[in-house]
């Protein structure tokens, strides 16, 4: 195995273990921290795929901003045992069914999917110049539509918080 492969296996192991930790730890703060580790592992995968820009943005946006806000909120909440909502048996059954359905879908999709043989693509495919060119030519419309989506979300958030202040 080459060094890249070793790194790949290590990152995959790390990603899987930490994402399992996200689900299984009782403490929400630990969950968030494990999720951050997962993001790092995924960013490492991006780097292996020579997608440096994606890796950096992944770290900045997810680990650097979104997860900080997650952590922020969880730290503000007082996690007492009594604060936990009652776990109704129905709720558990429903969640098991929902989770099972998701798993079925995933398994079905992965089984049905064909893994294309590894083709040698342009080594510069993940660099920022290539990405920018593709984004602003082939994917211009989806790019702009997504930015409008973000704008709408922002306006909505401002509206909601303003509304609360007035009442």
């Amino acid at each position, binding site marked *: 195995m080459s060094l890249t492969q070793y790194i790949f296996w290590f990152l995959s192991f790390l990603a899987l273990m930490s994402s399992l930790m996200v689900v299984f730890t009782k403490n929400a703060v630990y969950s968030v*921290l494990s999720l951050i580790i997962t993001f790092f592992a995924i960013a490492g995968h991006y780097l292996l795929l020579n997608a440096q820009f994606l890796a950096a943005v992944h770290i900045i946006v997810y680990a*650097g901003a979104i997860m900080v806000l997650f952590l922020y909120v969880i730290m503000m909440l007082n996690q007492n045992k009594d604060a936990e909502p009652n776990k109704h048996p129905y709720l558990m059954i429903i969640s098991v069914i929902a989770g099972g359905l998701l798993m079925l879908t995933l398994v079905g999709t992965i089984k049905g999917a064909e893994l294309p043989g590894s083709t040698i693509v342009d080594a510069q495919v993940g660099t920022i110049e290539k990405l920018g060119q593709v984004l602003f030519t082939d994917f211009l419309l989806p790019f702009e539509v997504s930015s409008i989506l973000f704008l709408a979300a922002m306006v909505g958030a401002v509206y909601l918080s303003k509304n609360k202040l007035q009442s």
Partner: protein
Amino acid sequence: MDPLLFKAILVVAVFGITLIVALYSTFGERKIAAVMQDRVGPNRAGPFGLLQPLADGIKMFMKQELIPSVSNKWLFIVGPCIAMLTACMTGVVIPWGGSLTFGDQVFELQIADLNIGILYLFGVVSLGVYGIMIGGWASNNKFSLIGAIRASSQMISYEIAMGMAIIALVMSTGTLSLKEIVMQQDAGLANIVYQPLGFLIFLVCAFAETNRAPFDLPECETELIGGYHTEYSSLKLGFYLFAEYINMFISSAVIVSFYFGGYNFPFQHELGLDGNLLTIVQTLVFFGKIFCFVFFFMWVRWTIPRFRYDQLMHLGWKVLLPLALFNIFATGMVMWGMGKL
């Protein structure tokens, strides 16, 4: 020499220099605070008190280690480690000088010339908040928690304005590599000429990101005792304090690289110095510029009182962010007008 060996030496050198500079920044901070308040400052340990940081370091080592029994012990230890790690990681992409030539081999004085250097820098800086947040939460102390929460909201708020200021810089330089940015400033003028507003925004945000006065709300003594490091003692406290000084040093280096020509200085090619000598002089000039900014950081700290929290948020969101957006717009318009687009 093996290129890998050279890189290893460079890493150790950068790490060591960073630590020494941070060590002596504490001394400089105390001295500058003293002279600005008509005092003398530390002058007992060694000649002119130059061994004072060493004595402080030894004191930090020798102090009793206290871990609160109600704290989350593992995270309590991880917190300062992350703060220190992220502080040290930023030095990787900074070009410390030109290139050295030994025989027919050329060695760049930059640990890694990433073509996304600015993004790397930005990513590491955005991770710096975890050290403070985790440490503050794990202490299980309300002052620490408030300090941690203040730190996180402050850093996230100012990261946005900082990112916008950098975007304008990237627009005018057309690259994300720090080496390239510095090289461009050798050929042309320093970026401060093109991006004065961007520089101002970046500078203010750098103060906020390093938690330095007047933005040191996460650790403001008068309200929060020690903020996020209230419960810390001994070397772990030292890590937090040290990380702040490393951050200050690195952000000075980044400001110089971005806006003040990095290691370049005027008329450097007219001096008739040969390659290696020029590189050494360049590195010294770079450090001189960095120290000017470190001094500036301290000068500001001992001049301007701390912001109130709502003022901080007002400045970040309602002043700096619109200014940064305007800066992007203006940069775009000027570039369009000059036909660079």
